[in-house]
């Protein structure tokens, strides 16, 4: 029967805690009154009588503590009271609370954002059926240095038919096509993904309406079909379900809409409006170029029950066989496979890992800082805690009180942090990183759970020090009140100093990282990319074959367009080019030069169609020979201009001007020979960090190109000439839409997006780290002044100058900063190595950067110490001595 009674007893106070408390209070009040009255009757003064009564009683709080400790379940009631106490207490210290909340919100926010992003990139399942069976195939070629290249379609088709371990193999073009759709006389440009007929089936993606494609539709000759994206269907076709089966004119061709994809399906590109089949001609398959040109991205779905290793083994057998069957094209061609997700995120792993590491450092720093503030506050509350423990509050109560207070702070901070992360991801979206469209960042319960775990982790980690302190006080400071034990003070100072040193060390790591990235960005900005990007506007156009069937019409159109544009105010020079510099390489090929031995060939040269206006608009100087000229037309012998790298690589000891080249490894009677007429300065093709590759420029008047960029050098803000461009275009061809508009400054910035994103975030983290460390140093110096008020007072009384006092305070604070810097230096040398692959023109152990950052932190530390040190010099010795 004992257990039943015990439980009833334990539950009772939970059921009616207020009642019990109120009754107890009244009962005790009555008791003390009676006892006081007794002492007064015995002749004591009322004050003394009340004191004696309280002494005889023991203490009120101790008594209460006993009652509560006796009933373990009463902790629920206690929790409520502690929560109220914690929240009320916060209202009294808005500065302290604000500092902590801000610190936590920013650092937890950054962690949550990184967590959500990393999860989306690396862990969240791709939105495809049986995504684990999907593998990306790629080709390799040691001669060209290809490691994960696009594949030649003929090879892909053979893999599909021969490798049994693959259930199916499909492909898409990595290059986004364009199609014009005219609505109410206004041309709209749609983004088109070209895919094989089995593309949707392989991904297991079912259309919302209608059907996907069939394999036969890969080939030209089958009817023209297309699948709409949900966004385009909604925006342009008013979500009309009758669209299925209707023929729509896209550019030159009538296309039957056979399906609409569900909302959120975005593969392979984010903004695809339309999927269309490749439309290869059946006879292409036997052509050499179909096996020589590498321009599709194949995706394989493994057969059920086959492991990746088994599939790869079977795959390699066929790759080897093809090498023997088609030596002309496949002599050194290899191939490999990689899980689809791994492929999509392959370039993001390094930067995301770096940022995740930085965020972890920031979070640790934030915890150290909050611990520091909490510790200082605990020191400030020494008296309160000592009183409570003297009044009999158990250690458990004091610890739980502190923990609850910190938990409330951490949870509030985490809630704010989630909001910060949400906003940050909306603003940044990591889009500059080129996060694959298939991996959308989701804010769900897992992210919430992470925030919660982070909050609890923070609360525990920054509670440790104050709790230790409270326990120690509970042990040895029994209402000794203001008499702070010298030993305890020293211990606390060491604890706080250690935290400060940790903060400084972590801040050093982050700021050095930011500094190295800043130096990289600066170096990249200063790189001579071979052209002047400022004040240049680029407009992308695609002329349709229906109205511009052949080279003469295309040439005439561009000639007129450029002439009319140059007549407009604000436009200094106009030209055309097939691909913008710094926006990725165009197509590449092999070549041979006239007079070379039969076994000699040039590998992997880049091509771009351009004209004189292009080079002049961009200010790319001619090195030797002549530029492409308006006279290099269809009726003149083909002329090309090469870049300096081309000349250096392939004609190191001879003059390339006047030499003739053909884009074939082995020349045949059909080869077109082109004469090198000039050498121009290298233009960076991919990024300022990557050296230019050998490149050859053909004349646009000698090679038909329907997709061109019109580049315009202006004498004003480049965007301001856009209305003129639209006017001129409308007059020339009202049905021709502008595909894209970019300034070359944007293009240049975009080529450094990865570095800039990492730089931006590291700078933000570093800035925050410096502020946190400064607050930490300031707090410790202020505390030391407060603690040594008496000593300083004595020194001043004995004639110490304000300089002496300043030095006294500064030396202590700065010593901790120096300790932190020393520790941070060791840490930095290890940590910044992670940045290596992102750095350009600077070593990860760059002495200048590290020294500058260390100096900066030292200055910040000195200033943070100097402020409280100034108070110390202004101490009035008389008051200081009385104070303690």
């Amino acid at each position, binding site marked *: 029967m004992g257990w039943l009674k015990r439980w009833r007893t334990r539950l009772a106070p939970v059921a009616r805690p207020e009642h019990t408390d109120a*009754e107890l209070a009244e009962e005790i009040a009555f008791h003390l009154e009676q*006892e006081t009255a007794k002492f007064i009757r015995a002749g004591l003064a009322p004050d003394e009588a009340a004191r004696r009564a309280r002494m005889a*009683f*023991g203490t009120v709080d101790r*008594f209460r503590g006993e*009652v509560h400790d006796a009933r373990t379940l009463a902790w629920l009631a206690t929790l409520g009271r502690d929560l109220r106490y914690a929240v009320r207490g916060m209202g009294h210290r808005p500065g302290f609370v604000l500092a902590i909340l801000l610190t936590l919100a920013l650092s937890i926010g950054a962690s949550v954002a990184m967590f959500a992003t990393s999860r989306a990139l690396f862990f969240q399942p791709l939105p495809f059926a049986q995504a684990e069976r999907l593998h990306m195939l790629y080709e390799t070629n040691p001669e060209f240095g290809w490691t994960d290249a696009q594949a030649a379609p003929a090879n892909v088709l053979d893999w599909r038919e021969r490798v049994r371990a693959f259930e199916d193999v499909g492909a898409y073009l990595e290059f986004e096509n364009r199609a014009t759709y005219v609505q109410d006389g206004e041309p709209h440009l749609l983004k088109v993904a070209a895919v094989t007929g089995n593309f949707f089936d392989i991904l297991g993606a079912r259309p919302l309406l209608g059907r996907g494609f069939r394999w036969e539709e890969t080939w030209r000759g089958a009817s023209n079909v297309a699948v709409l994206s949900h966004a385009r269907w909604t925006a342009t076709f008013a979500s009309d379900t009758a669209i299925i089966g209707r023929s729509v004119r896209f550019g030159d061709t009538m296309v039957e809409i056979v399906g609409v994809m569900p909302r959120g399906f975005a593969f392979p590109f984010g903004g695809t409006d339309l999927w269309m089949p490749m439309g290869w001609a059946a006879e292409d398959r036997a052509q050499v170029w179909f096996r020589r040109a590498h321009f599709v991205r194949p995706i394989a779905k493994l057969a059920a029950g086959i492991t990746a290793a088994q599939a790869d083994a079977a795959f390699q057998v066929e790759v080897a066989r093809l090498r023997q069957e088609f030596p002309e094209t496949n002599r050194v061609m290899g191939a490999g496979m990689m899980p689809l997700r791994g492929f999509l995120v392959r370039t993001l792993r390094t930067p995301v890992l770096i940022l995740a590491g930085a965020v972890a450092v920031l979070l640790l720093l934030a915890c150290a800082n909050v611990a520091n503030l909490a510790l200082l506050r605990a020191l400030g509350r020494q008296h309160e805690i000592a009183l409570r423990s003297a009044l009999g509050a158990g250690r458990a109560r004091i610890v739980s009180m502190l923990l609850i207070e910190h938990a409330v702070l951490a949870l509030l901070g985490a809630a704010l942090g989630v909001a910060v992360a949400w906003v940050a991801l909306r603003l940044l979206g990591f889009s500059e990183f080129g996060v694959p469209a298939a991996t959308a960042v989701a804010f769900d319960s897992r992210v919430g759970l992470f925030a919660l775990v982070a909050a609890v982790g923070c609360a525990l980690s920054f509670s440790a020090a104050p709790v230790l302190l409270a326990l120690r006080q509970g042990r040895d400071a029994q209402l000794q009140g203001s008499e702070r034990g010298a030993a305890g003070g020293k211990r606390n100072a060491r604890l706080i100093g250690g935290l400060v040193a940790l903060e400084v060390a972590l801040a050093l790591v982050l700021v050095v990282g930011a500094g190295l990235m800043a130096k990289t960005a600066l170096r990249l900005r200063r790189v001579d990319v071979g052209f002047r990007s400022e004040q240049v506007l680029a407009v992308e156009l695609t002329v349709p074959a229906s109205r511009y069937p052949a080279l003469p019409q295309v040439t005439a159109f561009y000639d007129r367009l450029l002439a009319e544009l140059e007549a407009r105010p604000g436009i200094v020079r106009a030209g055309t080019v097939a691909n913008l510099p710094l926006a990725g390489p165009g197509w590449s090929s092999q070549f041979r030069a006239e007079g070379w031995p039969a076994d000699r060939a040039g590998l992997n040269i880049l091509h771009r169609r351009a004209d004189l206006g292009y080079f002049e608009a961009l200010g790319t100087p001619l090195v030797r020979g002549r530029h492409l000229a308006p006279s290099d037309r269809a009726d003149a012998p083909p002329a090309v201009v090469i870049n300096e790298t081309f000349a250096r690589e392939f004609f190191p000891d001879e003059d390339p001007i006047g030499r003739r080249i053909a884009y074939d490894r082995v020349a045949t009677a059909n080869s077109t020979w082109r004469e090198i007429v000039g050498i121009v300065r290298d233009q960076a093709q991919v990024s300022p960090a990557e050296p230019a590759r050998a490149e050859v420029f053909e004349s646009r008047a000698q090679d038909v190109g329907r997709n061109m960029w019109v580049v315009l050098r202006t004498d004003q803000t480049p965007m301001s000439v856009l209305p003129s461009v639209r006017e001129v275009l409308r007059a020339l061809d009202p049905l021709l839409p502008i595909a894209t508009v970019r300034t070359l400054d944007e293009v240049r910035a975009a080529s450094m997006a990865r570095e800039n994103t990492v730089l931006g975030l590291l700078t933000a983290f570093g800035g925050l780290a410096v502020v946190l460390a400064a607050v930490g140093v300031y707090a410790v110096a202020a505390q030391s002044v407060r603690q040594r008020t008496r000593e300083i007072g004595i020194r001043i009384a004995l004639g110490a100058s304000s300089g002496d006092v300043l030095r006294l305070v500064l030396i202590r604070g700065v010593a901790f900063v120096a300790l932190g810097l020393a520790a941070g230096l060791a840490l930095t040398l290890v940590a910044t190595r992670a940045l290596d692959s992102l750095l350009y023109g600077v070593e990860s152990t760059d002495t200048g950067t590290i020294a500058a950052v260390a100096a900066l932190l030292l200055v910040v530390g000195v200033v943070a110490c100097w402020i409280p040190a100034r108070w110390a010099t202004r101490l009035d010795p008389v008051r200081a001595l009385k104070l303690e």
Partner: protein
Amino acid sequence: MPPSPSADVLRGTLDLLILKTLSPQPMHGWAIAQRLEQVTAEALQIGQGSLYPALQRLEEKGWVESDWRVTEQNRRAKYYELTGAGRRALGEETRQWQRYVAMVELVLRTS
């Protein structure tokens, strides 16, 4: 104040003393404290405060009942009274205590 090592023994003893004190008539807390002090000639060193947890324990065991009454000085106070179970418990606890004392006595004498 270091915690008394014999807190449990003391607690049990205190229960018994309170029951005994309450057996002639209902009393409020302060009166119980006064009575205990008088009877033990202030030899028993217990804080008056620990009286109340003990009273609460006894009430929760159902051995005493409490209600608010008005004192002679016209002041509201909580009075405690033995229940039937309390009386039985007093008898039982008294016997136990006596057995315990006798046993301890025996041990002390023989060794």
